[in-house]
């Protein structure tokens, strides 16, 4: 598979994981409301910007919970083992997403 199609696949998988992760915690209406509010319903969110917006809406603790749910969903979709990622302790959503993206593209 080419690097471009891998990147496209990752973008789709990531977008699905965002929906899936948010759904799991906030429900379908909550997830849809968050993405609509962030104007990200149809666009792939930039992890850093997404993190900032989540933080503004929900505060640190709830944001971390939501981001972990997204990462878990993404890892499941990619059929990775969760223990390859550090989801405990000081969790950094952007850094984790970069690691996963790099792993997918390799």
């Amino acid at each position, binding site marked *: 598979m080419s690097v471009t199609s891998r990147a496209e696949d990752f973008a789709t998988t990531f977008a699905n994981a965002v929906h899936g992760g948010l759904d799991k*915690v906030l429900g*379908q*209406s909550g997830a849809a409301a968050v993405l609509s509010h962030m104007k990200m319903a149809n666009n792939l969110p930039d992890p850093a910007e997404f993190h900032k917006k989540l933080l503004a809406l929900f505060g640190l603790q709830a944001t971390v919970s939501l981001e972990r749910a997204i990462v878990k969903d993404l890892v499941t979709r990619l059929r990775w083992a969760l223990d390859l990622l550090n989801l405990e302790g000081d969790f950094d959503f952007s850094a984790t997403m970069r690691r996963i993206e790099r792993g997918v593209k390799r």
Partner: protein
Amino acid sequence: MTTKKSTGLKPLIQVDRQRGAPGSGADDLAETRIATVLGLKQFMQGPIRTLLIKGLAGTGKTTVALEILKAAGKGKGAYISSRVAKELLEKHIPAMKNTLQSQEFLDIRLEDATSALDFVMQLTEPKKIRTIVFDSWDGLAKELEQKERLRAEKTLMALANNSGAQLIFVSEEPGATTIDYLVDGILEMVTVEEQDRAVREFIIHKLRGTKIPQHKYLFTLLEGKFTFFGPYAIPDYSKVSKFIQKPDIDGSYSFGSGALDRLFGGIIPGSTLAIEYDENVPYPALRAIELPPIINFLSMGRSAILLPLPGANDERTNSILTKALDERIVGDRLRILNVVRTSDLETTNLLKNVTPNQIHEIVTRETTRLREKSKDQSVLLVKSVSALENLFASDLDSLLEVTSQEIITLAQSHDAHILFLPKDSPIRSRILSMSSSYAKLFVRDGTVLMYGVKPHTGIYALQHLEDPTSPSLTQLV
């Protein structure tokens, strides 16, 4: 003064038409409203971020929610309505029109849960809104599956927690739902029947991190405003000021209290008013019915006789009266006749063998003496039946006979007669059948309530908001 042939108190309806809601003077209400707002602020301070107000239709949920919204401050609240349009709500609760106009109003009747949550995000993200009312949440939530509903509710909680806004959910679902477990506080509004009259009550089921001194409170929606009643507070008699006499009302004696006059329309000369009370009614509440007519009679240049309730402190009574009136007037035209005090019965031997007739003779003699001193020969007799019942427990028939004679005599001489009667009195029904008017006092949720049976009146909460000697009566509607 002119007298009337009929006995009894004036009908309430007349007062209603002439002066609006009886017993709900603007000043009384203003005071109560201040207490209410302070009370609500107290409820809503600190750790209470989310509150559920539940109850059946018409129990006052929306009014309470709007009061809380009002307390948020102008422009710092938002009302999300899934049931009623703004214009209609303003018509339903006109007293809250200003509140509705000064706060954000979002009509989501045709929106889904996603849009409603988006609205909440728009409100909470700038962190300017302090209170958001969701009326009603279950109107929307019922469309969601159980798991989806719970998640949507958790979303709302998280948004509220982060923004610092208070989220008030209004619900008509009587049973416990998922949101009951999530919110910090739950208030339930109910309407209960008390003596054939509807009484509103709110129940605090939960208020996390807040001391709840009492779980149930009575409230009224008089004039479309929420006003709740704390437990009866004994008045501060050190604040008794000089009494300003209340003139006769269209040939009737004034009760000496604006609230009582508005409720009953004055005492028709020659009538007997029976005040029935239950054992939980605090003595100062009874005193608020007992003293104003006495003070006003004396102030008007008339005379009065008081046979106090058992346990009444005559010195305290005297001290209150002499603060309200000139000491000479009290000493000259008032006789406090304590039937359990031997000195009042003139001889120490009398008490052991005293009969109802002997008491009656003393009362008659005192009435005759005081009649001479009264500017128009009229005398007010305020009498505790309980004190006499205790004294003549083995001869209640004689007591009834004497009471009957007294009622007739006082009626003929156009005097005024007030009898205090305990609820469990063995001669209750016979006394009541002889009385021209009859009112009841009892306690519910710590609040002293009063209503007229004869004539029929609404039900009122008795407090002391202004004058410590006089009652403030607020109608429960």
